[in-house]
């Protein structure tokens, strides 16, 4: 192996490539073969370990992310899971119905309710959730005592690692009908209340749960951006007579701009996905009228009612619109001169 012509590293291959470009004057002859064009067999031999290492992940992704894409054909079928024991075999035998499922969806008022709820929730989260981590990050950044900073960061990060089940359960134990606030009120002769089953405030409740769980976690990215601002900029601004608010406006906020743009793009591209697990857990308590979003609509029709074709069609619509949104949001970011999620 060690005496073979196979370059021992990819980096060596690069240096050989460079050597090929500038002919070796000492020996007076060109290398026998241009290493940039190693044969496939040799490259396979050189890189087999790396390929072997990467394969398990690629295989898992292929099976669980790519193969199911084929399964979307059931959206154009009248899928009957009872034709065969095997779901994919049943797929081959189910009759084709063209766009019938899509027609049914567009005529379903529950679908449009789900669309409306999804969009309302998205805008609520954008307005009520999005600014909070930025404000918190500015606040923490302005704290100069390291111990205070570290402790409050540790506390604020914590809820991010709790499961949705736990977060909702905590909210229920506090704000629910049998929760401690309602119980205490009743004990003192006031009327109790149940925020957890009130469809009117459900969307605010969902947003509040999201803030409790993830607002603290959201500050990490902003803190990182703030830490990379050069202190010289602040000093120069101060020399020029800028007070603390002007420094915030002219130095700090511009430093956050790219991060804010990036996160906005991500959020807009993901607009149709608003807290699937979180809402699914509370759907029964408030009823689908207020709680149904596109993801839970798919879950309800598909998994619960076993109407696989119908639900797959709904999921397909959502997926396609989402991809379009990601691309569009990124396009807008590029046009605004920001980097966006991926480069052009």
């Amino acid at each position, binding site marked *: 192996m060690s005496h073979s012509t196979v370059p021992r590293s990819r980096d060596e291959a690069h240096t050989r490539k460079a050597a090929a470009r500038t002919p070796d004057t000492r020996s007076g002859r060109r290398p026998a073969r241009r290493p940039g064009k190693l044969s496939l067999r040799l490259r396979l031999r050189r890189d087999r370990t790396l390929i072997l290492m*990467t394969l398990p992940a690629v295989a898992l992704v292929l099976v669980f992310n790519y193969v199911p894409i084929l399964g979307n054909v059931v959206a154009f079928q009248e899928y009957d899971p009872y034709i065969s024991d095997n779901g994919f075999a049943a797929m081959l035998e189910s009759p084709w119905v063209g766009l019938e499922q899509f027609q049914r969806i567009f005529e379903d008022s529950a679908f449009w309710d789900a669309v409306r709820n999804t969009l309302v929730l998205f805008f609520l989260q954008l307005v009520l959730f999005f600014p909070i981590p930025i404000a918190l990050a500015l606040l923490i950044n302005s704290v100069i005592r390291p111990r205070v900073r570290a402790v409050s960061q540790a506390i604020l990060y914590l809820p991010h690692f709790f499961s949705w089940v736990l977060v909702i359960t905590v909210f229920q134990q506090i704000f629910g009908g049998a929760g401690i606030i309602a119980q205490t009120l009743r004990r003192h002769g006031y009327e109790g209340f149940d925020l957890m089953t009130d469809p009117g405030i459900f969307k605010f409740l969902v947003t509040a749960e999201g803030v*409790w769980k993830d607002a603290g976690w959201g500050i990490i990215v902003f803190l990182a951006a703030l830490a990379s601002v050069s202190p010289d900029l602040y000093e120069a601004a101060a020399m020029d007579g800028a007070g603390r608010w002007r420094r915030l406006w002219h130095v700090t906020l511009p430093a956050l701009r790219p991060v804010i743009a990036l996160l906005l793009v991500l959020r807009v591209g993901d607009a149709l996905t608003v807290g699937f697990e979180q809402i699914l857990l509370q759907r029964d308590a408030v009823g689908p009228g207020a709680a149904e979003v596109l993801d839970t609509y798919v879950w309800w029709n598909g998994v619960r009612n076993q109407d696989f074709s119908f639900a797959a069609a709904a999921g397909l619509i959502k997926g396609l619109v989402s991809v379009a949104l990601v691309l569009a949001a990124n396009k807008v970011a590029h046009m605004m001169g920001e980097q966006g999620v991926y480069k052009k």
Partner: protein
Amino acid sequence: MTAVLDRRHEPVAEKAPRWWQAPPRPVWEEPPGRAGLAGKGIVLAGACLAVLFPLWIVIVTSLSSKKTITEAGGLVLIPRDITFVAYQELLSGGQVTRATLVSLGVTLVGTLFSMTVSVLAAYGLSRSGSLGHRWMLMTLLATMFFGAGLIPTYLLVQSLGLTDTYLALILPSAVSVFNILVLRGFFMNISPELIDSARIDGAGDWRILWKIVLPLSRAVVAVITLFYAVGYWSAWFNASIYLTDQDMMPLQNVMIQLVQKQEQPVGMSQAIKTGQISALAVQMAVMVLALLPVAVVSPFVQKHFKKGMLTGAVKG
């Protein structure tokens, strides 16, 4: 004369400020106003309290006796007679004990599996220029922009015969492309000279990964392990759609039944009915079981979060 001058130019050994003292500010920065300082403190303390207060209530109630809870009308703020009855009942066998063990098992096995696959893939993809590198990277990256959809995934898992097996809780979400990218970003930052010298000494890729790359990336490996572990520990959805056997349910799903649907834990209803334990304390104890591992582990990894998240954001 010169001695005086010299002494003046000697660097003054600054005492590190104690934790309650603020470190010195740069000369150009105005000292903060009293009102501003107070305002900041109130907002920050409020935010931290909003996180801690519910947890305090949950923990304290789970440790309270039935008598304390009844006297306090449900809202126990200060623990008086601390008792572990609720935990003893929950962990002395039965539904919750089994669910806790299931969750622990799935978390351990799943995290180990996910980390192995992810670290290998991250290393394999970190040496750019290798055969198929671009294609494999693209294959992974593309999944960050689209999902196959819930129904086709569900049908696939069914077709593979994974329903009612613990594999259904691990395999479908075993690798997170984001986590692989974070690891890869780190591995790529390790100086190539180091790796080359190891290679000249005759080390293969396996040995380089194990002896050089992994020891150098302990911080990010800790963060990603935590991410995976928390993911497995918190998961309930896969169990709810792929498992039908109640005995196989992990802790989160049991918590849904006990607390949200207000059911009584199987085998424990007797103790609650006869009034030995408060049903509220039992519910809170289940919640503590669910939050404890995460709350204990995550602060230790906390100082590495920023690095890990940042690498992901930049390289992604």
